[in-house]
């Protein structure tokens, strides 16, 4: 398979896409080989998802063209993309939880009889057939809300299969899956390939890419920096191209925090699971750990391990937790965000757009949000303080009065860090500190955080990236299904041990047996 000369089915030629303040794709040419698994690799913010959204008709390119079987096509809407046989399974699952599997498979393209009535029996039959083809038969009338993430993905794959997709885009399909679920997805991909479908596959996980991929394209900062067939590709090859020279050569100097006094002591932190769709909450079981002043503690874990829940409990936005939080020797009673802020704990949330920025406001107003005091605002004092922080954190903008949306991802992130620093905290929490930030800004964020820690701040961050955890953390806690499964110091850390500790031992789509606590310390 790998050696066979392959044919280009789809080519995105010289695609350029700009967003305010940033170029997401810079004359990118991406070739898709027929009936192969085409892997697209790149760090967060490299432009992978943007490119896929353009292929799927969700967004329009500013420049460049798409060629299908050598002929130029226009893809201005998902519907048009589907008519060319291009379908996408989004990173954020787009199943409708209030509908059942069969309704989801036919959402927006319902089969009708008598011109107006939905033909449920026909939909159910075809849904069942599509699921059988994927070797994952499921009752088609099961509400999507009751399905595991893995099963929802199967349902989406079935939808694209039924649409007669020739090219299927899978955008980080395994990021939320357990190992067993991911395995079954790989079988599905093999089946699809056998059925003649071309796959475009995006993931961060090198192991599965090397396992699945036939053709590899590497994106970095909106440019293609490598293209090769499986035979020429090694782990080394990918990592070198992904990181460029900027990140890979960087050696962090770490000040051992051993001598520093304890800042945060967490004892027996537990949180009950809640299962509503929108705000599903992973449980936490009896977490205990300490954090010293001047220390950067990383929490590594897969999606759903409870990373966000841990940080949000400390930050006061999940007040229903049990356990003790002691900061600087004082036991805290945190039931609101305001309590946490008052105690000196601030959080930079994971999702900047959803949880961080007020898009209507200026950069200055965003940074000073929540730290206004007194009855009247003092514009002069505020501007002075914000300018100072913007300088310290190197926020690149020509005017702090511009809307915050004009900043690039990295600078928006720095603005949110600045907002936290406005409150002079003693503990800074960061949830995925560099999500959607380009490689250069990433390194800069690490440098800034290191600088803040050196000044006496305690920093606790979570990450789903091994690379980031290794580069930033002095010490690492690994979370797995709401438990601390391992603790590592900076020196003990390797990719393999980290990943092994984070992966649940036994877990399938159907049984939710919790894994044994594996302690590495």
């Amino acid at each position, binding site marked *: 398979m790998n050696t066979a000369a392959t044919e280009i089915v789809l080519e995105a030629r010289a695609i350029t896409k*700009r*967003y*305010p*303040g*940033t*170029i997401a794709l810079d004359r990118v040419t991406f070739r898709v080989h027929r009936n192969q698994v085409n892997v697209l690799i790149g760090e967060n*913010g490299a432009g992978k998802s943007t490119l896929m959204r353009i292929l799927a008709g969700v967004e329009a390119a500013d420049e460049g063209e798409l060629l299908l079987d050598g002929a130029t096509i226009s893809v201005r809407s998902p519907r048009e993309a589907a008519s060319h046989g291009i379908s996408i399974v989004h990173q954020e699952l787009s199943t409708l939880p209030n509908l059942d599997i069969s309704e989801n498979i036919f959402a927006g393209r319902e089969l009708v009889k008598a011109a107006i009535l939905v033909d449920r029996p026909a939909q159910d039959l075809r849904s069942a057939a599509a699921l059988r083809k994927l070797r994952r038969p499921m009752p088609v009338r099961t509400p999507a809300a009751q399905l595991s993430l893995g099963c929802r993905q199967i349902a989406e794959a079935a939808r694209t299969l039924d649409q007669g997709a020739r090219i299927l885009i899978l955008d980080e399909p395994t990021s939320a899956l357990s190992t067993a679920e991911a395995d079954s997805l790989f079988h599905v991909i093999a089946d699809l390939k056998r059925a003649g479908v071309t796959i475009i596959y995006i993931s961060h996980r090198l192991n599965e890419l090397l396992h699945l991929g036939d053709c590899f394209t590497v994106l970095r*900062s909106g440019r293609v920096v490598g293209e090769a067939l499986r035979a020429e590709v090694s782990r080394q090859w990918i990592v070198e191209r992904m990181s460029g020279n900027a990140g890979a050569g960087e050696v962090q100097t770490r000040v051992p925090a051993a001598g520093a006094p304890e800042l945060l002591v967490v004892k027996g932190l537990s949180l009950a699971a809640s299962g509503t769709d929108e705000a599903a909450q992973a449980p936490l079981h009896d977490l205990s750990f300490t954090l010293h002043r001047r220390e950067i503690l990383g929490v590594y874990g897969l999606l759903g391990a409870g990373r966000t829940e841990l940080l949000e409990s400390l*930050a006061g*936005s999940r007040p229903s937790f049990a356990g003790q939080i002691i900061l600087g020797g004082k036991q805290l009673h945190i039931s*609101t*965000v*305001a309590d*946490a*802020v008052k105690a000196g704990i601030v*959080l930079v*949330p994971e999702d900047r757009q*959803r*949880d*961080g*920025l*007020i*898009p*209507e*406001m200026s950069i200055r*107003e965003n940074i000073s*949000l*929540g730290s*206004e*005091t*007194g*009855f*009247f*605002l003092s514009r002069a004092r505020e501007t002075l303080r914000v*300018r100072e922080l*913007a*300088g310290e954190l*190197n*926020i*690149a*903008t*020509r*005017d*702090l009065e*511009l*809307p915050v*949306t*004009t*900043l*690039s*991802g*990295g*600078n928006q992130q720095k603005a949110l860090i600045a*907002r936290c620093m406005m*409150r002079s905290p003693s503990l800074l929490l960061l949830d995925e500190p560099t999500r959607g930030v*380009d490689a*250069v*800004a990433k390194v*800069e964020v690490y440098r800034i955080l290191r600088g803040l820690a050196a000044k006496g701040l305690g920093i606790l961050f979570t990450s789903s990236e091994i690379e980031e955890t290794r580069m930033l953390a002095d010490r690492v806690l690994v979370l797995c299904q709401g438990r601390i499964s391992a603790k590592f110091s900076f020196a003990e850390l390797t990719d393999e041990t980290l990943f092994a500790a984070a992966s649940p031992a036994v877990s399938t789509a159907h049984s939710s047996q919790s894994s044994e606590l594996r302690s590495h310390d």
Partner: protein
Amino acid sequence: MTEHLSSPGRSDRLATSSVRALLFLLRARAVFVLLLLLILFSALAPSFLTANNLSILSKHVAISAILAIGMTFVVLTGGIDLSVGSVAGLGGMVAGYLLTQGLTFGGSVHYPGVLIAILIALAVCFAVGLLNGWLVAKAGVAPFIATLGTLYIARGAALLLSNGKTFPNLGGQAVRGNTGFPLLGQSFLLGIPLPVWIMLALFAVVALVAAKTPLGRHVYAVGGNERAARLAGIRVPRVKLVTYLVSSLCAALVGLIIASQLEAAHPATGESFELNAIAAVVLGGTSLMGGRGSVTGSLIGAFVIGVLSDGLVMLGVSEFWQMVIKGTVIVLAVAIDQLQSRLQAKFLPYLLSSSPEDGQ
């Protein structure tokens, strides 16, 4: 840092000046519409610009402007207050009841003074605002539903007070020591009706709070991104509660002013006023999604609506056509608002095209 904050070159400014001009025209459209209407009506109706007419006009405007000013904060947080018309009716009725029926305790009837009556009326309406705020901020009821409920509750309460009848003769009696209520709506200060002064004072206070205080900033933040505001440590429920209290108090004032002007409290006072207030807020450029808009805009919006309806009456346009025209203006205003935000989003990258390298 200083090189990042350097100002753009002259040529860039020239290149973007036409875009800026267009955006400015769109943003200030309510003012232009108001000027246009004033010119149009003064040309078509000779009596439009007389002192007498302007005095009447300003009283009408004051009523919808006070409601709109109060409504602005609610809408800025992404909420809506449908109860203001009923609350106005209730406020007038409470004052009317106290001034004409008095309070009975110990077998004898006591008549509270005008000031006490006004304060009690305000307090009752404050309670309705408290209920609105509690329902929205604490109980998590959608603002539309919560205030629809209190719309009925307040109206029902107003009707119950008089069993559906009007309280006439609010002028009071010297014997009872409760004269002077009509002064609120009918007196003049420096030749300008008192309600207009009340409107201006409220405008000044609310605009100041919006622009210069943490509370104002938080109102915008909650409307812009409620989750982010909460995670930034803003007490979102408290902010929302305050907005509904402001709205109800403004509505109460309107009810009192109307009762004072008529020297009678009618339980149906204020019906459909909420729609006028919302229309004024929206005309002024405040987004119903929250986070964007201004108190000044609402004031201008109220002027547009007031001038439009009074002018059409003077021109002898039929009442039915008035409704069609008013509706058209409102819909057009919102459509242009959408156009403006789309254009702004589209042109922003070009306005910033001269910015230095931006991190990516």
